[in-house]
């Protein structure tokens, strides 16, 4: 169980996919302009990585080495398509907002990387712990970045259509740059610097 817990914690902090490994930057920077989209992408990512890690780990002894990458890609793409259909049917607003970035999970380097580097070589329980840790680490990073971007770029935080709060002074005069792509880089850089300064992240 300690192996499970170590692997789980690793993805959240020590090997945080966004702040430490700096992987999957494309969706991170593109969908973090609002908290809604960040949560949607986190959910999709979690479903895909958990399902694909589990299946690949289960099949790891039967997958021929020669065709392992095509097999991983087919499995991941299948789960991405299923998640897309789920989102389209049940949360169409988030589905439309995420646009192409949801489909692009099929070629996400983090999902494929975990399948190749971890799930295909480890037991199901460890692969599950890795997928859960990575999902939570990815989700926390997206929530943090989107929180600051939405707060500063829009002056308020809105979650699924309900305005949670407005920042006094910024409500009517938000700093639009934070809603733009450059704002994502700024927030990410500042958060990285902050985490390094307080010593949470050591290997940036």
């Amino acid at each position, binding site marked *: 169980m300690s192996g499970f817990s170590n692997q789980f914690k690793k993805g959240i902090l020590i090997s945080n996919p966004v702040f430490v490994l700096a992987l999957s930057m494309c969706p991170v920077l593109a969908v973090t302009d609002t908290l809604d989209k960040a949560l949607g992408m986190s959910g999709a990512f979690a479903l895909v990585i958990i399902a694909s890690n589990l299946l690949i780990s289960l099949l790891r002894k039967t997958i021929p080495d020669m065709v392992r990458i095509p097999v991983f890609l*087919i499995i991941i793409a*299948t789960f991405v398509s*299923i998640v897309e259909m789920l989102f*389209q*049917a049940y949360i169409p607003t988030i589905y439309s907002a995420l646009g192409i970035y949801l489909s692009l999970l099929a070629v996400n380097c983090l999902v494929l990387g975990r399948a190749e580097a971890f799930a295909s070589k480890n037991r199901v329980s460890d692969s599950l712990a890795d997928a859960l840790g990575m999902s939570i680490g990815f989700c926390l990073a997206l929530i943090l970045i989107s929180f600051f971007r939405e707060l500063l770029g829009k002056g308020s935080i809105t979650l699924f259509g309900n305005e949670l709060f407005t920042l006094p002074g910024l409500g009517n005069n938000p700093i639009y740059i934070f809603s733009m792509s450059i704002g994502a880089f700024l927030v990410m850089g500042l958060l990285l610097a902050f985490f390094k300064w307080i010593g949470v992240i050591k290997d940036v």
Partner: protein
Amino acid sequence: MINVLKKYYPVCFLIVVILVCSALLMGADKINRTVLESQQDPATVALLQQIFPSATFYRYSVDTGIYTIYDSSRHKIGYAMYGADNGYRSKITVLAGLKDKETIKNIIVISQFEDDAYWERLIKNKFFDQFIELPVEECYSSYSWLPGGVDAVSGSTYSSRGVTNAVRDAILDKLEYLD
């Protein structure tokens, strides 16, 4: 024999994975289609099919008032939105269909209580056909009596203006929300 099996095992495995994944996707697609169909109002679909004959699904955004329309393969084929303005005797409500941000697909009149003689003149003179494939810019190129691109029917000018302004009302404020 064992050697032959070993040789072709990777290819066979890949084929099996592809077949299983295809079956999974077909199942998921069937469920997705059933869920989407259960969320559709048949009357609205029938209305939208008057503009987009291949319309099968739609999504309505309460915030923007835009219907996004999909065909049976769930590919987006256009948008539709309601607009209204006053004609000669009544308020004219139209449903305007857009192929994309630039082109109107067609319009249908949802309600009007204009004088029959004036309204029939519009139909007889094929006034509504002018909106088929009309560039959207023709709708806001001018704020004069009637915008460029749409000619009023002589003797039914107020009704012509009502329809045109209703189309303009439908699309102009919503263009910025289209993907």
